[in-house]
């Protein structure tokens, strides 16, 4: 099974006056792990459902493997999908659930058994085959849903928030497993999530959506290092980038000068360090997380989070100075939030 490229051109979806997708164009190369990221209601699930054929675009073209599939029914598109609810058939056993689609397509029984064995071996669910979904844990149900996608041997796999029903520990484990699976099988993955850590950890390509439009389409490292808009900056990173409002050419309440046209100054929490001189700040609180400490401070009129390595004891109200490299600063336009070049970088 090899991946197929997915291309969306000007895809729009509206229900009456509300527009869920406003002309989304997107190219996912064959075999790529692409994450559609965004807050709830941004249109990412709608986008996935349009690729699957479960929803129809009001305008625009969907191509899979170079073939225009805009008008094709879901089954004719060569895609497999893992639903947020897993959509397992409650009255069928695990084995029957996995081969459901193969039976429906009248795949011969020998071939069916071969594909089932392979999926079972990949996922390690041999001991569950005779059980019903109701007798499985969330993680096991998730594996069965993956099994159904594997046996389809589709070149494109779609996943709609597949990990949102799992606890944090299992989520991290499944994240690694899904990524390993995608690499091993080589299929093109379109993965919807609102969790930016999933996007950062898994994706080759992240597409950040907001109000039905693409904010930025880039590899995760680029999205982190060079956010195209202040929205992207405030969405990526734990904690996300600090954004300080600018007034009269300086950061409000400080003496830090900014380039012409910039309305926001952005600084990653991990780009800050405590020094003898620099940005004067007052500690609000310090949250110790083990590997590092997140210190919340007031700077001028704004509020800043600093992520400092190790355990740092700081009393509330303590006056400190925060230093940073000038090339680590980001500037964003006041009117449209677009990134403005940093003269020092």
């Amino acid at each position, binding site marked *: 099974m090899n991946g197929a490229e997915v291309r969306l051109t000007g895809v729009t979806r509206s229900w009456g006056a509300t527009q869920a997708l406003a002309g989304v164009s997107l190219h996912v190369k064959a075999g790529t792990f692409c994450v559609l990221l965004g807050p709830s209601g941004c249109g990412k699930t709608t986008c996935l459902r349009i690729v699957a054929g479960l929803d129809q675009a009001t305008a625009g073209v969907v191509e899979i493997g170079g073939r225009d599939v805009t008008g094709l029914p*879901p089954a004719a598109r060569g*895609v*497999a999908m893992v*639903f947020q609810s897993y*959509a397992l058939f409650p*009255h069928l056993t695990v084995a029957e659930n996995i081969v*459901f*689609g193969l039976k429906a397509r009248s795949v011969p029984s020998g071939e069916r058994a071969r594909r089932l064995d392979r999926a079972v071996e990949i996922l390690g669910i041999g001991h569950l085959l005779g059980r*019903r979904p*109701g007798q499985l844990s969330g993680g096991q149900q998730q594996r069965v849903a993956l099994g159904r996608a594997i046996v389809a041997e589709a070149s494109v796999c779609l996943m709609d928030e597949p990990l949102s029903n799992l606890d944090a520990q299992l989520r991290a484990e499944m994240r690694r497993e899904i990524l390993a699976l995608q690499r091993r099988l080589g299929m093109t993955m379109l993965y919807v999530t609102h969790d930016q850590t999933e996007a950062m950890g898994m994706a080759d390509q992240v597409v950040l959506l907001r109000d039905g439009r693409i904010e930025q389409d880039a590899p995760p490292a680029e999205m982190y290092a060079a956010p195209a808009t202040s929205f992207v900056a405030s969405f990526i990173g734990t904690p996300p980038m600090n954004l300080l409002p600018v007034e009269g050419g300086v950061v409000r309440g400080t003496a830090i000068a900014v380039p012409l046209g910039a309305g926001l100054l952005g600084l990653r929490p991990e780009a800050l360090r405590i020094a003898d001189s620099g940005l004067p700040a007052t500690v609000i609180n310090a949250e110790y997380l083990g590997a590092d400490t997140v210190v919340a401070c007031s700077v001028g009129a704004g509020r800043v989070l600093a992520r400092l390595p190790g355990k740092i004891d700081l009393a509330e109200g303590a006056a400190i100075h925060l230093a940073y490299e000038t090339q680590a600063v980001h500037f964003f336009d006041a009117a449209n939030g677009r990134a403005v070049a940093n003269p020092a970088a």
Partner: protein
Amino acid sequence: MLKRETWQAWALILPAVILLVAFTHWPAITTVLDSLYTTPKGSRPPRFVGLDNYAALWDDPVFWTALRNNAVYAFATIPASVVLALLMALAVNTALPGRPLVRMAYFTPTMLPMIAVANIWLFFFTPDYGLFDRILAVFGGGRHNWLGDAATALPSMIAVAVWKEAGFFMIFYLAALQAMPPDLQEASNLEGASRWYFFRRVTLPLLMPTTLFVLVNAVINAFRLVDHVVVMTHGGPNNATTLLLYYIYEMGFRFWDTAMAATLTVVLLALLGTLAWLQFGVLGKRVHYR
């Protein structure tokens, strides 16, 4: 000494227990006892006769006719009303303009009292100027005495019962269909399953708990629903529409042979009990409850 909680528990279930005992259990027991005695007359107290009443029933040709009629009635109304209910539920479960109206129309027969329904249908079946004869006249059909002909009287009763029941069962199927997560259908669409395949492999099995419930009710109704016989045919012509419960009513309240009525009642109860046991025993195992 009973504990306070025990007293309270008894006090709470007492009203239900009194009603059940007074109107269900006690009459059931006396019915069984009555079937072992002769019918009391003004001058003659009841006399214990053992199973003589059952022997007399065995020799009663009308009883066998009623039993046969009831079997035909059940075998026709049960599958017809259940299948029709499922088809109607599937039809109104899709996005359709004016769907609430259609649903209401399907449910109307259930809301109407059977006596009123029977009178409406009496008009439908009237020879010459009734609805059916009028429609048949358009296609060149002649006049037909639907209820007066022994060959068409029972099928006419069956038609009324199916019309009355299907809408009621549809509500249960509709509720079950609405409770089914839509992503099962979507997953199935993606897997390339045809609508028929999905219906056969997913919808139908998931509706099994509803089907069992509906079937039990349909079986009970096949023996219970006789109001329209009382209004439309009085069991005639020549007992062609005499059903068991109607025969019990005739025996008890027109011939005043209460002992034979009690005997018939015991037979009917035994029959229903056996059917219910079979249904839960055989079908119950194959039902998947979520």
